[in-house]
């Protein structure tokens, strides 16, 4: 009896000793190895933030998707359990058909993906959860699904280059996706937990979790509806004129916020690989063109601001100007005329603009344009912005020092042109255009990017005078088609020769920039068309401006105008100065405007 107990005790001691050896001392690191085997570390990918328009419509969203992979070395006939409990043998050929059905792929593509001796190969990328679930029901042990994210852009190429796109490795490659990447991206998290042999998580085991910091949502000032009107209108016009490209900028005059940046063709961010290289950027931002006559507004504003003229100042304009060896003509033939400043701008006369503008010296002409931001980037939150070219005044040649007054020999983006008009329409206060309204972090805190400081580039009275002349362009001048029924509208046409890639010029750049309603301008629309085909007098975009502006005014419920705009005489024939010739026209003088005049 006692011997038996002793034996038992010894055995017990042995067991306890072994237990202590394993559990307490663990010289071979079994516990660690076991923990490592049980522990699973999973990366928790941060969800990329959404991009929405000003009304909250989603422009870019992140969706759950799966990448389907295969271990090619394990592809053999397998017995898989079916739903009724029985098992079924699936040969690789059968598997190919089943996978192809589940994923909606062609049999040959699936076969190609399964054939080989790689342990890791993609079968399909970015399949929907629905397709993935169908695939999972096949219970094929050599097929794996890896959760991943896919960006979805519901509007497609509508504003596509503004929204931007991601590359194959989720690298932000264009538009807002690129410039706001740090906000949108977020920070990946990590989860550690223990699983049992059958893959179920052990509930009582310790687990650590570092939550992912999801990306912030970015709200743009872009309005999808306005973007659509604008894009549809410029595409229609560009198609009719067989233009190389066209753009439209719609802007809120009071804030400088961009409501639409329309392109005639742009990338569909859902399939950026199919887009042409020139469609990847926003042309209103990346393309610098000679602005042409729209620049006369900058010249006029500068002359008004410096007290050189008033809208009703009379200037005798010969049929052409001869300055040394340079001849400057107008787009239409006319005899010598006595025009008002409003009449010169109304019919877009190069000659009159040069007579008026040349009262500013060369450096002042340069500084006037630079003051409006010509030659500088606006700093809008879009990649690849072109600064345009404004050469220093001392590098201008004999012709350029006059042509810059009507927008030739200088280049700028359509957005910069719009920005000049924004300053004029906003009582002389220029606010650089922006497109990001706010950024909302994952925890709900909203931050608004600091808006650029308004810059008074023009006196309020000079701005008002410029607006009056712009309205006259539509009511009495050469842009009557720009009118919008019910509203007072003002603007300026532009036609410039487009520089050819091989030197010289080929084709035109036509444009119209306008604002409305004139009693208190709220919206600005700038349309530009590059190399439209056809006669120069028929390739304008004034009607396109009218279409877009009318939609914008209705869309934002702007009350129709109840007042009448100012009326200027375009010509005063009886006061013509007979002694003015093409050679001496620049020397003519006129009475300096009194303070009262310039207020009017």
């Amino acid at each position, binding site marked *: 009896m006692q011997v038996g107990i002793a034996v038992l005790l010894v055995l017990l001691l042995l067991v306890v000793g072994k237990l202590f050896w394993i559990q307490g001392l663990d010289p071979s690191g079994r516990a660690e190895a076991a923990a490592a085997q049980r522990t699973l570390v999973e990366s928790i990918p941060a969800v990329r933030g959404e991009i929405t328009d000003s009304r909250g419509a989603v422009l870019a969203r992140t969706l759950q998707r799966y990448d389907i992979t295969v271990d090619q070395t394990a592809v053999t006939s397998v017995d898989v359990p079916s739903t009724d409990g029985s098992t079924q043998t699936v040969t690789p050929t059968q598997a190919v058909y089943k996978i192809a059905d589940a994923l909606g792929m062609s049999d040959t593509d699936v076969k190609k993906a399964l054939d080989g001796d790689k342990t890791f190969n993609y079968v399909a990328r970015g399949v929907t959860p629905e397709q993935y679930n169908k695939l999972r029901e096949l219970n094929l042990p050599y097929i794996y699904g890896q959760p991943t994210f896919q960006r979805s852009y519901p509007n*497609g*190429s509508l504003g596509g280059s503004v929204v931007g796109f991601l590359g194959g490795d989720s690298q932000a490659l264009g538009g807002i996706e690129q410039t706001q990447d740090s906000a949108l991206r977020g920070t990946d998290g990590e989860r550690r937990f223990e699983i049992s042999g059958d893959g179920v998580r052990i509930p009582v085991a310790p687990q650590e979790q570092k939550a992912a910091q999801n990306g912030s949502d970015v709200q743009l000032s872009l309005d999808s509806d306005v973007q659509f009107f604008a894009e549809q209108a410029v595409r*229609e016009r560009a198609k009719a004129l067989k233009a190389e490209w066209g753009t439209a900028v719609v802007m809120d005059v009071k804030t400088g916020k961009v409501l639409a940046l329309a392109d005639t063709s742009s990338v*569909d961010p859902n399939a950026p690989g199919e887009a042409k290289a020139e469609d990847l950027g926003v042309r209103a931002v990346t393309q610098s063109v000679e602005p042409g006559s729209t620049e006369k507004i900058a010249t006029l504003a500068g002359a008004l601001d410096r007290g050189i003229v008033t809208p009703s100042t009379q200037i005798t304009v010969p049929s052409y100007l001869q300055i040394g060896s340079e001849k400057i003509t107008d787009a239409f033939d006319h005899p010598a005329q006595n025009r008002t400043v409003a009449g010169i701008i109304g019919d877009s006369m190069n000659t009159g603009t040069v007579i008026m503008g040349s009262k500013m010296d060369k450096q002042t002409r340069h500084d006037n344009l630079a003051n409006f931001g010509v030659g500088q980037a606006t700093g809008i939150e879009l990649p690849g912005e072109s600064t345009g070219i404004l050469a220093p005044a001392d590098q201008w040649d004999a012709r350029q020092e006059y042509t810059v007054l009507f927008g030739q020999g200088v280049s700028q983006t359509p957005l910069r042109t719009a920005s000049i008009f924004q300053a004029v329409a906003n009582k002389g206060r220029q606010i650089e255009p922006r497109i990001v309204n706010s950024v909302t972090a994952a925890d709900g805190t909203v931050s608004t990017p600091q808006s650029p400081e308004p810059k008074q580039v023009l006196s309020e009275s000079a701005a008002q005078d410029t607006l009056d002349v712009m309205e006259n362009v539509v009511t009495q001048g050469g842009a009557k088609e720009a009118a919008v029924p019910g509203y007072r509208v003002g603007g300026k046409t532009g036609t410039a020769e487009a520089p050819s890639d091989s030197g010289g010029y080929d084709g035109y750049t036509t444009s119209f920039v306008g604002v409305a309603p004139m009693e208190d301008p709220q919206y600005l629309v700038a349309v530009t068309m590059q190399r439209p085909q056809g006669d120069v007098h028929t390739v304008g975009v004034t009607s396109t401006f009218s279409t877009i502006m009318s939609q914008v005014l209705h869309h934002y419920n702007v009350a129709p105008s109840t007042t009448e705009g100012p009326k200027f005489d375009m010509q005063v024939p009886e006061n013509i100065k007979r002694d003015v010739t093409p050679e001496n026209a620049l020397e003519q003088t006129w009475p300096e405007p009194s303070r009262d005049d310039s207020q009017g």
Partner: protein
Amino acid sequence: MSSAATTASSGASEGHGPERRRPLSVVPHRASRRSRVSTVVMCALALAAALVGILVLNIQITQGQYELTELTGQQRALSQENEALTQDIEANSAPQNLAARANDLGMVSAKDVGSIDIASGAVSAPSAVAEKGDPQNILVPPAKLKGSDAAEANRRAAEERAEKRAKEEADKKTAEREAAQKADNARDLNGGSLPAPSQRAPGN
């Protein structure tokens, strides 16, 4: 009870006088009746109860775990379905798709929007009746969204519209050509196949 006590005390006083109380002694412990067998049974039962308890607890935890997994799966499935539906809604509400469908329904853009000055009650801008026109050719293509049936349907519809438009244009051109041919045939060619040269009138 009190009456019984009274009877007893009266009996004692009537009898043989005070009797000496017997000294109390410790009653010897009675031998335990419980057998070894019952102890073992008790232990076994306790052990079994504990085991069953643990088992039930374990089963419950496992059950809970499975339920959790199932519910998580369900939640995932629902959120994925939600996501897919949201994608469909967004595809359908993309401006170009809305405009195209409005076109299909024969809708046209409003001409002039009327407005009323509330202060004076006057019509400050008269509205105009929309005019029936040719369907607008929507030039903004639908999005190439992946994994959305609605987007797929919109793309197909756009393709069909484009085909129809191309066919109509081709028909129109054929009709024009035929009309021109007819006019040509009607012309008097004086038996030849080429029209006689016409002279430009002076002054034109």
